[in-house]
Structure formats: C-alpha cells, structure tokens
C-alpha cells in the first residue's frame, strides 16, 4: 500500500508587476474577485489573474511594554496575503475582512487592497486611475457595499466601480450559457456558504435563491478536528492547512453514503482502500537504543567515580590517623624518657588529652581505627573487580541459552501465560470498577445492599471494625474492588514483555517501518468530510442539506420552469471539482424529479477561476462602461448606489432616514 505524504505547500511572496504606460493610458479596468478564501486580481486585458492570494492578514501582537525599558516597542510587521509564508505559525493572529461571505472589516480590506494595488505596480500619485470590477456576495447588505465604495473612492480615488456576483460571472464564462439555469455555487470563493441561484430567461431570481451556511470552511474544520480526536498524539501535527490539503487531494463525495458506509464496515475492504498518510517524524528508535546504552555507561561511570572518591577519602583519613598516632607515640616516648612534667602537660592539653591513661586509650582506639580503614581499603579494591562483574550481567534478558528449541518454546509459553494472567487480572479489575460505577449491575447492587445493611445497624453497640473480617467488607464495597493495579505488577509485565521481545521479536508487533506510528489512516473520513454539505446535522446545524435545498428551490417554481432549471444545473465554486460530486447530485436530483424527466448537471471547468474569467470578459464588453459608477455619481447618489446589470445584485435603496424620521414625527 502506497503511503501518501503531505506536501505542505508554502506560499511564494508575490512579485511587483510592471505597470506599463499602456495600462495607465487606456485606464484598463482592474478585476478583483474578492472571495473570502482567496482574492484574485488582474487587468481586464490579461489572460490570467496576475496575483492570487489568501484574503488574510496576520497582525502580530504588539510586544508588551516591559516596566524597565523606556524605548518605544517597534510596531510589528504586518503580513498580508502571500507574504504569510508559514500560515500555521501565525494561525492565531490571522484576520480576514470577511464575516461569513460579507466584507465587514474594512481596515483589513484596506490592507489587502494596498497589497493588491501595490503588487500590480501602480505608482500614480494619490489615485488608482482605473475602473474597478469587484465581486461581492449574493444580496450583499447595503452597509457593506456602502463602506466598500467609500473605501475605493475616498482612499484610492478609483475611476469607477462596478459590482457583480461571482457565481453569475462564473456561469457566464461557461462556454454555452443557456437562458435558464440553476447555479449551484459550492463555496470556496465564499467559502463559508453555498448558494443555489435560479436563473430564468437570463434573469437572476433572487427571491428563490437560497444560501446554505455550510461550506468548505466547515468541511476543513470538521476534518481537522476529527483527525485530531482520532489521533490525539499527533494533534499538533494535524494542522488546518493539512486538513485543506486532505480535502483537495484525498476527499471524495460518496454517491450513496449509506452504501459506502456498509462497504467500509468490512475489515477487508477497509484494509484495501484505506489511505495512509505519513506525518513528518524523526527517527528516534535507534537513538533511544543508543541512549539506553549510554545511560548504562553513564551509570557505570558515576559508580566508578564514587568508588574513587570514597577510596581517596579513606586514604586521606588513614594518613591523618597515622600522623596523629605518630605524634602520640612520640609523646609517649617522651614520657617514658622522663621529660619534665610541665612540657608533658602542655603537649597533652595541646592534643586535648587529660592524662597519661587517656593517652594510652587514644593510642589504642586510633590503632584499631587505622586497622579498620586498612581493611576497608583492601575490601574496596577487591570489590571494584566484583562491581564490574554484575554490571556485565545487567542485561539479564539477553537471550538465555537453551539446550533445545523445545525447551525455549516451553519457557516462552510460560512467560506468555504469566503475562496473560496479569492482563486478565487487570481486565477483571477494570470491569469491576466499571460495574461498580453503574447502578443497575449486579456488582453495584450488591454493593448498595451491603452499605445499606451496615447503615441499618443500631447505634450504641457499634462494634464494626473490631474483627478482622470487617476489613473484607470494606474491600468489597470500595470502588477499586480492594486492590488496584500495583506497581509490582506493572514492572513484572514490562519484564515479561522484555523477555518476549528478546526471544521472539516478531511477537509484540513491533513496527517494522519506523514511521508507522506517525501515519494517518483516512478511511470513512474521506467521504465524511464532503458529506457535511449534504448533512449539516453532522456538525449540529439545523439547516437542510444541499440536495434537500436544491429540491426545495425547485419546488418553488411551476412545473415548466422546474424542468428548465433541472435540465441545466451548473455547479461552480472551489468545491465543484470534488470527485464523485456530479454523480451524487445527479442521483439525488433524479430521486426528486418526476419519472423520466430531463435532468442534467454540468460541472464548470476550472471552477475556482471561472468567475474571474467571467468578470474579465464582462469588463472587456461594451456594456461595462455603462455600468460604472463614477465618483461624481457616488457623491450625488449616495454611497450605497450602484448600477444594476445582468450579473449584479438588485439595487434597493435603504429606506433609512426618511422613513425613520417619518416614524419619529408620528
């Protein structure tokens, strides 16, 4: 079985493109496909978007002022779009201008537009002298659009603005757009939601458009968390970006989810179809073996040094004692030779000895002491050799010699039996503990019975605890069942494992490959992730799933229109290229349509870029210039004003001030 690897793509910082005089002279429109996942920016004359970046900024937190430093903390570097090289490193500082699929945070939007315009190479003073074609959410609230216009006109002095809906642009980029279609936009551009947009006779029907507030973002987060829970050990190695990678490279949509689940329940099928993904790891099996050896060596070294220190100390003490006894013997000699009394007394007090008798005694004790130390030194020197011996024997499981294979087999079997015994004991204990925790098990009820019996005893003559047997009752009612997994048992278990490993290495299922413990097994998960948009209840959402919503939207039309829509379902958006999606939608759609009616589903090629292409094509057309709102119009008509066209949202001026004032007057 092939083991997959994470690619962990790193973003490459964008280059600053050249701003040619032609672009400036012709005031070529700038196309901005402002999706909540990525933003794509390019000129209307270019064939591909020049820059594509995640719509994210990373704002590192200002370092806290330390009390003793007076200098002003440096404002940390703001990272925008593709400047963020390692997105996981700044995961918690990421900010986007989007709230769901609507731009709300215009400070972030400003940074991202700065990034876009400066990488296009624009160098005109105080203005961006180009019309802007910007995509926005379906039924984008006026407030959001108003602030966007304000930003583009006041801050960048753009020549004009036109807004449009990304998925409609995407649909029209499709080679042969028909008059009616049911556009299914699977959010990745607007990756917090999916849209189902009916288009009848080239008219976008907003009334019956529906938005599913579950999208790619939710799938990625779901996968991320799911794998973290499945592999708690690797929780830090499973990152959001890796979950994204999984969604793109491994995940697929099940045509029939239930059937798929039944297949996966079979162990053999699982073995054959599971995808294994290698997490990066460092080989430490060998190094740990080395350190084990090193540890032993170190211990031995330490013991040797201790012995040496002791020996030195003993020798020092011996020398000291010998010197002292020599002096004392000198004094004794002096006394024997009959030195004068005064000097003898003076020297005696110098050595803190009271009289001659005492002197004799001290000499005697010193002599025995010296004798003892000498013996010790002797013993120690012979001991060093002895110490070396058991050290060598220390690896006691280093494969014992057996006379025959059969004998070894018997021995191993015995060890295995012993091990099994301990394991069973442990299991029984665990079972008991569990039974005790519940109320309705036999063990639990027995326990309650004993407790209540104990409580029933009359006061006054309470002699419980006087007899030794009373302790047994305590043991039976304690939740651990009297004894718990003892340390000795665990040690024994380890020892048995060790013996088994040395004698039968294959026995304990040691990983043959070093990184096997660092592999993620993706089985049902590859279907479980994408299934989320069909079953939002998997994350506790009350919403209907994608197929259900499509059926619901169709049901809002009369049968003729239903047929028109169902015969041309077009799927766009970043999730559209998930394998199996078309078949799934087709089966689901057929199941809700009348028998033998026409059903047709198309997945748009290059779904994630199609809306940019569509927008570019529109910007090249003649009608584009008529849909532009200029700064003059902006000042005259108010900030929320924009021109309606085939690809845009409907314009409904907010009934704000007048109506509110009217209310107030009444």
């Amino acid at each position, binding site marked *: 079985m092939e083991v997959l690897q994470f690619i962990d793509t790193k973003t490459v910082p964008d280059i600053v493109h050249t701003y040619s005089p032609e672009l400036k002279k012709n005031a070529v429109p700038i196309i901005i496909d402002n999706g909540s996942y990525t933003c794509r920016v390019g000129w209307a004359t270019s064939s591909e978007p020049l820059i594509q970046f995640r719509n994210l900024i990373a704002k590192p937190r200002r370092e806290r002022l330390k009390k003793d430093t007076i200098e002003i903390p440096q*404002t940390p570097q703001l990272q925008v779009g593709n400047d963020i090289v390692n997105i996981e490193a700044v995961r918690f500082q990421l900010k986007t201008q989007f*709230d*769901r699929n*609507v731009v*709300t*945070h*215009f*400070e972030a939007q400003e940074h991202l537009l700065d990034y876009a*315009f400066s990488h296009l190479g*624009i*160098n*005109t*003073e*105080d*203005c*961006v002298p180009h019309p802007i074609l910007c995509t926005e*959410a379906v*039924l*984008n*609230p006026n*407030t*959001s659009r108003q602030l966007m216009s304000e930003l583009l006109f*006041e*801050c*960048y*002095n753009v020549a004009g603005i036109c807004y449009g809906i990304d998925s409609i642009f995407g649909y029209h980029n499709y080679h042969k757009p028909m008059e009616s279609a049911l556009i299914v936009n699977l959010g990745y551009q607007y990756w917090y939601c999916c849209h189902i947009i009916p288009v009848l006779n080239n008219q976008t029907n*907003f*009334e019956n*458009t529906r*938005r*599913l507030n579950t999208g790619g973002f939710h799938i990625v987060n*779901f996968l991320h968390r*799911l794998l*973290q*829970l*499945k592999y708690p050990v690797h929780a830090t190695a499973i990152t959001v970006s890796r979950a994204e990678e999984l969604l793109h490279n491994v995940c697929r949509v099940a045509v029939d989810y*239930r059937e798929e*689940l039944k297949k*996966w*329940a079979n162990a053999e099928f699982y073995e054959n179809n599971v995808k294994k993904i290698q997490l990066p790891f460092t080989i430490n099996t060998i190094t740990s073996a080395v350190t084990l050896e090193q540890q032993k060596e170190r211990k031995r070294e330490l013991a040797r040094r201790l012995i040496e220190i002791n020996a030195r100390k003993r020798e020092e003490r011996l020398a000291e004692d010998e010197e002292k006894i020599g002096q004392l013997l000198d004094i004794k000699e002096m006394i024997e030779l009959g030195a004068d009394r005064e000097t003898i007394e003076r020297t005696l007090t110098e050595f803190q000895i009271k009289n001659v008798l005492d002197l004799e005694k001290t000499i005697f004790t010193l002599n025995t002491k010296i004798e003892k130390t000498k013996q010790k030194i002797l013993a120690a020197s012979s001991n060093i050799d002895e110490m070396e011996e058991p050290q060598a024997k220390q690896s006691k499981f280093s494969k014992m010699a057996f006379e025959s294979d059969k004998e070894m087999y018997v021995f191993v079997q015995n060890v295995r039996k012993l091990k099994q015994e301990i394991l069973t004991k442990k299991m029984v204990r665990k079972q008991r503990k569990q039974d005790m925790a*519940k109320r309705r098990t036999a063990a639990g009820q027995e326990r309650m019975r004993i407790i209540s019996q104990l409580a029933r005893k009359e006061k006054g003559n309470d002699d419980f605890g006087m007899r030794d047997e009373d302790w047994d009752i305590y043991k039976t009612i304690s939740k651990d069942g009297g004894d718990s997994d003892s340390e000795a048992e665990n040690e024994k278990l380890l020892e048995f494992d060790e013996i088994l490993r040395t004698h039968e290495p294959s026995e304990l299922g040691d990983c043959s490959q070093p990184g096997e413990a660092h592999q993620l097994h993706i*089985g*049902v*998960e590859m*279907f*479980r992730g994408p299934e989320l948009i069909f079953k*939002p*209840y998997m*994350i*506790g959402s*009350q*919403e209907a799933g994608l197929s*259900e*919503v499509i059926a619901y939207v169709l049901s809002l039309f009369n049968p003729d229109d239903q047929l028109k829509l169902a015969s041309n379902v077009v799927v766009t958006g970043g999730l559209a290229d998930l394998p199996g999606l078309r078949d799934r939608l087709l089966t689901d759609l057929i199941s809700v349509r009348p028998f033998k009616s026409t059903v047709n589903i198309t997945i748009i090629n290059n779904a994630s870029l199609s809306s940019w292409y569509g927008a570019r094509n529109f910007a090249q057309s003649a009608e584009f210039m008529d849909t532009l709102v200029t700064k003059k119009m902006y000042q005259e008509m108010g900030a929320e004003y924009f021109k309606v066209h085939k690809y845009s949202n*409907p314009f*409904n001026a*907010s*009934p*704000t001030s007048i*109506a509110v004032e009217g209310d107030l007057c009444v």
Partner: protein
Amino acid sequence: MNTEIQTLGQKPVFKSTSWFLSRQTTKKRTWKGLKQIVSSEKSLPWSENVVHYSSINTPPSFLPPEKLSDLSGLSAPYTDPQTRLRFANKEEYTTMIDLPMDITAGYLALRGATSIVG
C-alpha cells in the same frame, strides 16, 4: 511621534493623502459584525417585495438526521448512556470506554451535541 512618522513613510503612493492622514489621527474604528448589519437591515421599513441577505437562508431540514458513529462515521445503532457517544459495534465500544473525558467531549462538541437539553 516616532512611530507615526515611520508609518506615514510607508504610505503607498496611490493612496489618497487626506484619507491616509485622517486614518492616522482618528482612533481605532470598530466594525459592525455581520449579525449586527443583518439585524439593523431587518429593522428598516423595506417595501414588500425586497429580498435581503437574511431572507435567503435555507429552511431547516425536514429529513430525520441519521445516527452515525462518532468515532468511525459508520451508521450507529447504539448510544453509550454514560458518554452519550454513538457507536456502531462492540469493537468501537471497547475503544470508546477507554477514551479520556476531553476526547469524548470533543466528539460531542464536533457533533454539536453538547447542550443538555438536546
């Protein structure tokens, strides 16, 4: 003062100077979240046939939710009364009872089943 000059120096050439200066002096602006925007939009006296952002939400599901195992994702006929986790077979159950609290709670949170009422 020092920092202000620094940031001023960073102004991209195409940005309007007046806008840039006003942004430097005014204090940090708070932006309304989508919820606030939507609720204030709803409160306005729109005419009858206007469609809003909030009016195109999907209806709730009418299909009964399937019961799927929290661990494996397989269809799960059983629920563990202690942890409230769903499981498909006894092998799953044996692994499940060994799971620490934080993992079981994580699974429940993922399914959105943490509320006591539900």
